[in-house]
């Protein structure tokens, strides 16, 4: 039986290949959509894990979360430095770290912060030591620099017409272990260096025309008070979950904003989920069209081969064998297309994830899940049904009529 089917498929190689490719492409589309959505969701959820509570100036919750978690460059309103000081001294807070962004170097975001945040992101450094002076920097695992290398920060980003700061050159003293988050691409520097560089330190004159020179050898000072300059965001690690909710409640006001990044992301995923639903519906739609096209091809194929089918019956092949041949042949095509589509879809999702990881540093895990099994079974079930129809239709005609056609 299988020998006959294969001999037959060899005779209709071109058509068989076209059908397989058609099915494979439509399956690949659904597979990619499903896998990619899951990869983005899991990847960004893991990226947000380390950020319990964010406090910023009143504004967009989403922008605050995206900027701090994914280091997405965007101008954020500054939060008064006093808030940072209050948070640092709050007994419910394990640590509060400023996050000051806006500068970059070779496309890598330069973020002003404290050693507390470095310890939270990478409890043990991959190499070197945390910064101890204003002119020192710690780099994320994906930043292609060596320990001891010099980094010249640029205001804004090169592609938006930023200018290079002349006030300071950082020296790399340490590298963090990989975190799988956007912070792997970041260059972490002391927040006070950022303030001074931008002429924001309380002791300096505010003059933007002249670059403020920063003394790179000044020792680190991570105590903040009411005189502390403003920061775009403060990352807060509350001691307990109850503290987290209380703090969020307290800092939600007219001047400040407090968000759980995970919650903001969940809301974004809901939107993303809708988009996935839409894409998946489109993918399913294409699949239906493809199945209809395949059905048409099959009916024509069966029609063209009525003589052969009639002959099979005339020479004593039982009807179930004829049905099995036509059905088996079609099902084999469906199955081959399905398997090829799975492979293609997986490869495409991997490719997209790799590209996304290269630009965002967020690791996106492409993996199949249990619920995919039911989707696969659905497809196979549908394929069985769709391919059995033309097979059964071959029985309607008497073998004599089939032979004459």
């Amino acid at each position, binding site marked *: *039986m299988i*020998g*006959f089917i294969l*001999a*037959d498929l*060899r*005779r209709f190689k071109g058509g068989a290949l076209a059908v397989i490719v058609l099915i494979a492409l439509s399956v690949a589309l659904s597979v990619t959509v499903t896998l990619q959505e899951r990869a983005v969701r899991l990847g960004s959820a893991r990226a947000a894990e380390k950020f319990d509570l964010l406090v910023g100036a009143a504004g967009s919750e989403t922008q605050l979360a995206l900027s701090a978690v994914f280091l997405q460059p965007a101008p954020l309103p500054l939060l008064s430095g006093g808030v940072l000081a209050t948070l640092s001294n709050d007994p419910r807070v394990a640590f509060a770290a400023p996050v000051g962004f806006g500068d970059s170097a070779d496309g890598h975001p330069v973020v002003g912060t404290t050693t507390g945040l470095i310890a939270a992101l990478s409890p043990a450094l991959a190499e070197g030591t945390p910064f101890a002076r204003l002119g020192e920097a710690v780099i994320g695992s994906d930043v292609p620099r060596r320990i001891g290398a010099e980094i010249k920060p640029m205001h804004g980003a090169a592609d938006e017409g930023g200018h290079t700061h002349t006030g300071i050159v950082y020296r790399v003293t340490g590298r963090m272990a990989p975190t799988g988050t956007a912070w792997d691409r970041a260059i972490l520097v002391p927040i006070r260096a950022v303030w001074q560089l931008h002429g924001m330190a309380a002791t300096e004159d505010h003059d933007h025309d002249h670059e403020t020179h920063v003394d790179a050898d000044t020792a680190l000072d991570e105590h903040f008070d009411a005189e502390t300059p403003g920061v775009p965001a403060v990352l807060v690690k509350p001691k307990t979950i109850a503290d987290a909710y209380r703090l969020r409640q307290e800092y939600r006001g007219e001047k400040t904003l407090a968000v759980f990044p995970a919650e903001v992301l969940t809301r974004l995923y809901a939107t993303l989920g809708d988009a996935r639903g839409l894409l998946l519906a489109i993918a399913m739609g294409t699949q239906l069209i493809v199945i209809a096209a395949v059905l048409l091809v099959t009916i024509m194929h069966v029609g063209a081969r009525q*003589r*052969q089918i009639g*002959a*099979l*019956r*005339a*020479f*004593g*092949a*039982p*009807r179930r*064998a*004829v049905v099995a*041949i036509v059905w088996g042949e079609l099902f084999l095509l469906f199955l081959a297309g399905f398997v090829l589509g799975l492979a293609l879809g997986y490869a495409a999702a991997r490719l997209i994830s790799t590209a996304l990881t290269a630009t965002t540093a967020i690791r996106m895990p492409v993996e199949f899940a249990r619920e995919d099994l039911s989707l696969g079974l659905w497809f196979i079930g549908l394929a069985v049904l769709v391919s059995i129809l033309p097979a059964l239709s071959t*029985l309607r005609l*008497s*073998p*004599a*009529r089939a*032979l004459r056609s």
Partner: protein
Amino acid sequence: MLALDITGLEMRFPGLDMPVLSIPRLQLAAGAQLAVTGASGSGKSTLVNAITGLEMATQGVVRWEDTNLAALSAGRRDAFRAAHIGLVMQDFHLFPGLSAFENVVLPARLSRRLTPAARERARQLLETVGIARPNQPTETLSRGEMQRVAVARALLSRPGVIVADEPTASLDRRTGADLADLIVRLAGESGATLVVVTHDPVLMDRLDRRIGLEGGRIVEDSTEAWAA
């Protein structure tokens, strides 16, 4: 070696007033050899379809020994044909992509009746019909060889009846004569009842009885001619 007994057979096609075939009575003894002749459109092929069960009889009885084909469902007619009737057609109907041997055993294989004994018989039959290389792909055979493979296929299940529809019509004279020889000889050896539709006088002369069809009716029967 089944006897044929036809009573009141009528074959009609939708849209035609007249039956395309109407045979009040036709009997054929077991092991007899019958030639069916007639112009095209005289109902020869319809007769073949009726006695092989390829088409349902509109009316009447087509009895091979105890089995009335006209009363069987399509599936049972297929099964009866597979078990008792060896078919040889004008266009061979071999399946390209399969070897001569695979073509001979294909019906048995598809009905899961392919025993080692049947394989052996297939090899012997191919030798008997003169196919030297059983593994040769069918599409590379000559037309005469193709029809020989078809004859071997028809004989595989040791049918009690062999029905051949214009078996030599698409062959040249020499090849056709050889093939006519082969069919008649093998049918005789196996004792199978033989029905051959043919225009070929060489083939007709070898068979003991001949009927002529015209407009779907028997207008000539060599047995009756002798009797008269």
